[in-house]
């Protein structure tokens, strides 16, 4: 899910960027440093939407760099346990399938796929019901529920399930 959040960060700026464009340089550096990063607590920082406050700079001894505390607003994407979301399948194998929801990767194990769906190998591996009416393959859209999350240094990885009611395939690319 997306969240709009206020975060704070200490930005270090080299004296070459001082002058009348100091604030612009600070904001540019903030966006470069922060956008696209991922943290366990806040998730992916998708975009900085505004600057709330830039505090007074503090000169660091010995280096001449100045540290500015910056409060900024940003949009983050963070999945959480129990969340229902729609994802696009990126890969299918006998262990389950991988799907993508925004910047987040989700894995759905074959144990968490309904029992009436069997893995079919081939050029386009897929999970299909016995009557062939429902198929999960690459580029299928599925509604799933997040049941666990893992945070790496640069990404969030989730485990999902489609075994509950009202979960499963929304859109099969083969039928379009």
């Amino acid at each position, binding site marked *: *899910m997306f969240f*709009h959040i206020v975060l704070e960060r200490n930005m270090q700026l080299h004296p070459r960027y001082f002058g009348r464009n100091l604030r612009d340089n600070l904001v540019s550096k903030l966006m470069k440093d922060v956008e*696209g990063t991922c943290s366990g607590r806040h998730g992916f920082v998708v975009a900085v*939407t505004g600057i709330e406050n830039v505090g007074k700079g503090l000169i660091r001894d010995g280096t001449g760099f100045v540290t500015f505390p910056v409060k900024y607003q940003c*949009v983050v994407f963070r999945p959480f346990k129990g969340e229902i979301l729609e994802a696009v399948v990126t890969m299918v194998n006998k262990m389950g399938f991988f799907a993508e929801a925004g910047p987040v990767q989700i894995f759905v194990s074959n*144990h968490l796929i309904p029992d009436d769906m069997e893995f079919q190998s081939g050029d386009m591996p897929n999970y299909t019901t016995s009557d062939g009416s429902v198929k999960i393959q690459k580029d299928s859209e599925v509604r799933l529920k997040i049941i*666990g999350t893992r945070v790496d240094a640069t990404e969030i990885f989730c485990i999902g399930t489609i075994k509950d009611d009202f979960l499963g395939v929304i859109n099969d690319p083969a039928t379009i």
Partner: protein
Amino acid sequence: MEKGGKGYSSLNKGGKDDSPAKSAKGRRVQFAEDSFDPISGSSPMSGGKAASTQFKGGKGEKVANGGKSTGSKSSKSSEFGIEQELPKNVKCVMNCEAADILQGIQDRMTMLSKDPAIKIPVSFDKGLQYAKSNSHYTKSESVRSILEPLADLGVSEAELCVIGNVCPQTSEEVFALIPSLKVRRSTIEGLVREILRELGKLKKPM
């Protein structure tokens, strides 16, 4: 020959070798999730114990946030412990609202992108694409006002946003997808049906 115990080889501490839960560097990771039965798919409330999934096998990293979720202890009011995990000044944003915000930023970025030093991050493109493709409504600004009455009856912001994002068709679907609302079913069911009717009018044609 070294015995590793029942079901264990000397090299493998258990679990599947080709488990996709293994990270690329060969570490086994443990996905901590509370109160979940992987076989039945049910989710009875538990007291916050961290249970592993079937990927459990030997030593591995514990999930940074999910190991001991304090949110699950108070999960009687909301299954989503996200409100406890994030700071207080957080605002949940629905996909349709996020699409508007990010589109506005992209329009400004198109002007700035002529500067080769400015690169648009991959996660921004992915986030925008995801928000736009999962935005089901023609008038995103009206969606929140339609859902607001549920907040007065104790529905959390995260739960409201999930309803807005998923756009369920029936009240059955709402209570099946968000089990934490079941405790308030008798008080909110009528309002939920009305809200779903209103949201249905705003839905984009398929």
